[in-house]
């Protein structure tokens, strides 16, 4: 780093001495912010990769892929998130939140996506924070995901769920849409109860809208499967013809 330079040859005035100190404080703060931004970008990149891996799951590789995804998530936790947490203590968390919030949101998105694909349920904030058990901040206090970051991450989760549902239907698993539909409905109804997130008003509005769009897309997918299936009574379909046939492998 470049050390502050004095402006005159006189002995340092008390004012200057104070500002030297303030200057050091600001430098430390800005360097910390920069490190947090970088750590957050790393969390984002690695979390995105986990999400993509989940999208590659098929019936045949499901167990192995999920295991790998969990290992990868753990690696993000142990490396990038831990690095991030170690920068923070006391008031820092909310002071620098804008620097690392994007990464944490993406991590929430990844972790909840994996959990949904694995167990068909929503990973709660409490469970998520329990998984951070070993991660301590600079003051050795537990590091946690904030409610706004969790909520915004879960907001993005609906987009991934929607993709899973559509590709499920496209791949001949009409049931996929139904499970996702129930999940997104639950999320949307939960979201509807919440007051607007003051910390991220714009994101909040955008994500609420996107969420409804995703829900409508998935409901439409369910509708299509249903209407199509209703045309002929199920007994007609039995026997030699099986929907979600095997001719695509």
């Amino acid at each position, binding site marked *: 780093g470049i050390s502050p330079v004095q402006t005159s040859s006189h002995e340092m005035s008390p004012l200057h001495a104070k500002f030297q100190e303030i200057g050091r404080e600001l430098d430390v703060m800005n360097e910390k912010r920069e490190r947090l931004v970088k750590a957050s970008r790393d969390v984002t990149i690695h979390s995105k990769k986990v999400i993509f891996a989940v999208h590659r799951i098929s019936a045949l590789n499901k167990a192995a892929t999920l295991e790998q995804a969990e290992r990868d998530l753990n690696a993000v936790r142990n490396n990038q998130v831990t690095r991030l947490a170690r920068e923070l203590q006391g008031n820092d968390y909310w002071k620098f939140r804008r620097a690392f919030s994007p990464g944490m949101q993406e991590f929430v998105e990844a972790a909840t996506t994996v959990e949904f694909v694995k167990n068909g349920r929503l990973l709660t904030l409490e469970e998520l924070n329990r998984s951070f058990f070993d991660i301590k901040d600079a003051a050795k206090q537990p590091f946690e995901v904030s409610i706004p970051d969790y909520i915004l991450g879960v907001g993005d989760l609906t987009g991934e769920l929607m993709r899973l549902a559509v590709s499920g239907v496209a791949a001949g698993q009409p049931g996929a849409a139904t499970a996702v539909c129930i999940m997104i409905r639950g999320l949307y*109804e939960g979201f*509807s109860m919440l007051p607007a997130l003051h910390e991220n008003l714009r994101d909040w509005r955008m994500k609420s809208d996107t969420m409804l769009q995703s829900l409508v897309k998935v409901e439409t997918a369910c509708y299509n499967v249903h209407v199509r299936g*209703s*045309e002929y009574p199920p007994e007609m379909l039995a026997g030699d013809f099986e929907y979600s046939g095997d001719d695509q492998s």
Partner: protein
Amino acid sequence: MEMQFEAFRSQLEESGAVRERIRAVISELDNVVRVMQASLLPVHHATTQQAAKEVLNKAKSYIPQLQKLYSQLAEIIRDRPGQYYRYHDHWRNQTHTVVFLLSFVHWLDTQLLLSHSEVETLLGVKPEEFSIDIEDYLIGLCNISSELPRYVVNRVTAGDYECPRQVSAFLSDLFSAFRILNLRNDLLRKRFDGLKYDLKKVEEVLYDVKIRGLLSNQAAPKPMES
């Protein structure tokens, strides 16, 4: 100069205080509206008439709270005759949603449009004191229209093949009724433009059901709880 400004100060503070009181009411109204709307959402996937009825009842249970809050607004305005439109902006958005909720619930119950005066009755406001602005009422109706395509899709998924016909008839009537109005180039006109797409979407669902022979031949639409 000072005396005059002293007088201004008290007038501005008075109107500031009015705004503060209105804001407090609106903040509560916002909460009630949000929870009422959330309570109505499950109607999209209620599987039985009984379940649907319960959802509606739950939603209706918030009406007394709405009445209380609107009567507070009315009371604030009552002492300031002629200033309804001075503060109108404060309750516009919430009123759009309130009209939407009340008339959607009413339509689900009866397949009928809740009239402007019925809205006022339900909210317990007296038109000569605190009326619901007509444009706010109309925007509220546009909100139903944008909810109905989703509703129809979900009803059909749940096996209710008559619903599209009822909704299509209702929206078609509403659309023609709006066509009578000479709308300015404003929010209401923009919202009305959306109505056309909603109707189209519902007609497409009706078509899907019809072409697959899922639609019964009895033409008369019947209310849900019949």
